[in-house]
């Protein structure tokens, strides 16, 4: 794919290209032995399906998580979408359009998965527009140069896949199945991001500087995507991790996934020739992992609370598009209702 002997196309670049994905995707969802009791199904690591009885809190947790995931896909179209008209070559333009389309598609799968829990898309979109539900904070950072499209693919999609591969084994069937497909497509996105940076790093001095600058800006926000610390001392502070793990929604702690991500990305940065912006980043032989510096959690909480560079811009854009389209959706509904009535009358 890259026409060189440094990058082996068969070498995994992200978690969706590892055995963990294959194992999750093939996870047995036969459930003929334990009946349909919720606790028994969870204990047997089998899937809960929409018509099964489930605790209200399980349902609410899933609605919140799946909706937040769907919103992230839809809001996530914006930072790269605004580069479609500016992509530097026609090939890049075509790939970028296809990528942003995929994100819209992921949003639709996920809204559909949430709808199986008894809520509709319009209600979820209202909650997004009213600020009652969140999306991934990473999209509150701006895309300043073309290289940001590369850094988003490589780092942000890479981190998202690391989070999502375990979700392919989520206890809730529709979410797990959506994740299996989403991860496969995200894997292409991550590769295209890597390839953008690869080309930039082998280009002109200005292109190399652009790539390095983008990596400098996206590295730390990407690490924060795994969420606040939840192992060691932090584990006692609560949060969603413990209950979500007991329900088979979450499989690994935030810190463990973050470590796996760092371990996977450092060698890729070296191949790219990009210097990751962390002076404390070094291999620890004893742990068998890379050590890395402290994440700025104050910034994380600040952006999460709505005070990031693009929070207002993203929601304003989303609301405007939705409001401007209201008359179109009303017309489609009116047309459908009118013609459904006509069909009934002619049948009667």
């Amino acid at each position, binding site marked *: 794919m890259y026409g060189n002997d440094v990058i082996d196309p068969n070498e995994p670049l992200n978690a969706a290209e590892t055995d963990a994905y294959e194992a999750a995707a093939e996870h047995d969802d036969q459930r003929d032995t334990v009946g349909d009791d919720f606790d028994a199904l969870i204990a047997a690591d089998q899937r809960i399906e929409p018509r099964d009885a489930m605790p209200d809190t399980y349902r609410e947790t899933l609605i919140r998580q799946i909706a937040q995931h769907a919103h992230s896909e*839809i809001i996530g*179209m*914006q930072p790269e*979408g*605004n580069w*479609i*008209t*500016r*992509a*530097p*070559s*026609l*090939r*890049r*333009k*075509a790939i970028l*359009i*296809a990528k*942003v*389309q995929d994100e*819209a*598609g992921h*949003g*639709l799968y996920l809204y559909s998965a949430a709808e199986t829990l008894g809520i509709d898309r319009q209600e979820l979109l209202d909650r997004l527009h009213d600020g009652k539900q969140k999306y991934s904070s990473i999209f509150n950072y701006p895309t300043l140069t*073309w290289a940001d499209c590369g850094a988003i693919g490589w780092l942000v999609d890479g981190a998202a896949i690391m989070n999502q591969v375990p979700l392919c084994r989520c206890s809730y069937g529709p979410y797990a199945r959506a994740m299996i497909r989403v991860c496969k497509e995200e894997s292409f996105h991550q590769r295209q991001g890597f390839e*953008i940076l690869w*080309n*930039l790093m082998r*280009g*002109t001095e*200005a*292109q190399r500087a652009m790539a390095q600058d983008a990596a400098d800006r996206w590295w730390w926000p990407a690490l924060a995507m795994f969420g606040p610390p939840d192992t060691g001392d932090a584990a006692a502070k609560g949060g969603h991790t413990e209950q979500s793990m007991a329900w088979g929604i979450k499989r690994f702690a935030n810190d463990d996934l973050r470590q796996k991500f760092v371990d996977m990305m450092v060698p890729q940065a070296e191949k790219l020739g990009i210097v990751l912006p962390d002076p404390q980043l070094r291999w620890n032989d004893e742990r068998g992992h890379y050590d890395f510096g402290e994440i700025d959690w104050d910034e994380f909480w600040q952006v999460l609370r709505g005070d990031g560079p693009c929070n207002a811009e993203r929601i304003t*854009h*989303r609301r405007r*598009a939705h409001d*401007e*389209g*209201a*008359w*179109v*959706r*009303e*017309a*489609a*509904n*009116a*047309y*459908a209702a*009118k*013609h459904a009535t006509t*069909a009934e009358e002619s049948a009667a």
Partner: protein
Amino acid sequence: MSDHATAPVTEPVTEPVTDPATSATESARREPLPGAAGSADGGAHDDKPYAGYLLGLADDAMVYAQRLGEWMTNAPQIEEDMALGNVALDLLGQARGLYPYIGSIDGTGRGEDDYAMLRDEREWRNVHLVEQERGDFADEMARLLWFSAYQVELHAGLTDSSDDIVAGVAGKALKEVRYHLDHASLWVVRLGDGTDESHARMQAALERVLPQLAELFDDDEASVLAAGLGVGVLPSTLHDAVVARVARVVEQATLTLPDGSRWRSRGGRSGIHSRPMGSLLAELQHIARSHPGATW
């Protein structure tokens, strides 16, 4: 194309896709590009003097793809972000299919990005219709209805082109633009026969697009030459069939096809453009032009 969003229209407005027409594309691709070797000497090909005609077709597709790309994240619903993205991708593909061939027959050996990123406004050969700024959703559906109806008739004609490559590109494009026409038709019908507001907006959009239509059917010098060689289609010969297609949709939509317009756009095929073209090119080209010689 994957998406026909929301309410289905029970009667298909356009005919189903029946003709795969892939064999022409495949045979054209298997053979070396005629003229590809000759371009090295820098001489134009006197036996294929129709690069200017093909440039008009390619630029129409390229510029409209650029405009449609602006809809992504701005559409009335997520399904429509995807659908308009699909149309943009198809049109971009049509342009990319033609540019390298044009480069091989106009004697310059230019590639797709040379055409898209490095030409100034006066060198572009697209009609004014496709360069106009994005309006509301009704404006876009009016433009897409007319443009795809035109492209359906155009590419149906070009599948008989005496140039195998042109026939091949047209065969593939014909399948795509039939879907585009279907998509636009479904929306025009829903909007026309939807609410009072959507009816009024769709009618107004049909009137606003009117001044940009005549140019699609102008027999400029390049198309007269290409049609004379059996390579191209004379635009004026497409007029009645295109209008008939649009009129059927407009009637089903309970709208009125407006008639006549004092101003008619002209000059796109000879590089005379309207104000929005300069801004469109600035956005399209600025990164590529800021880094001369760079690859991406």
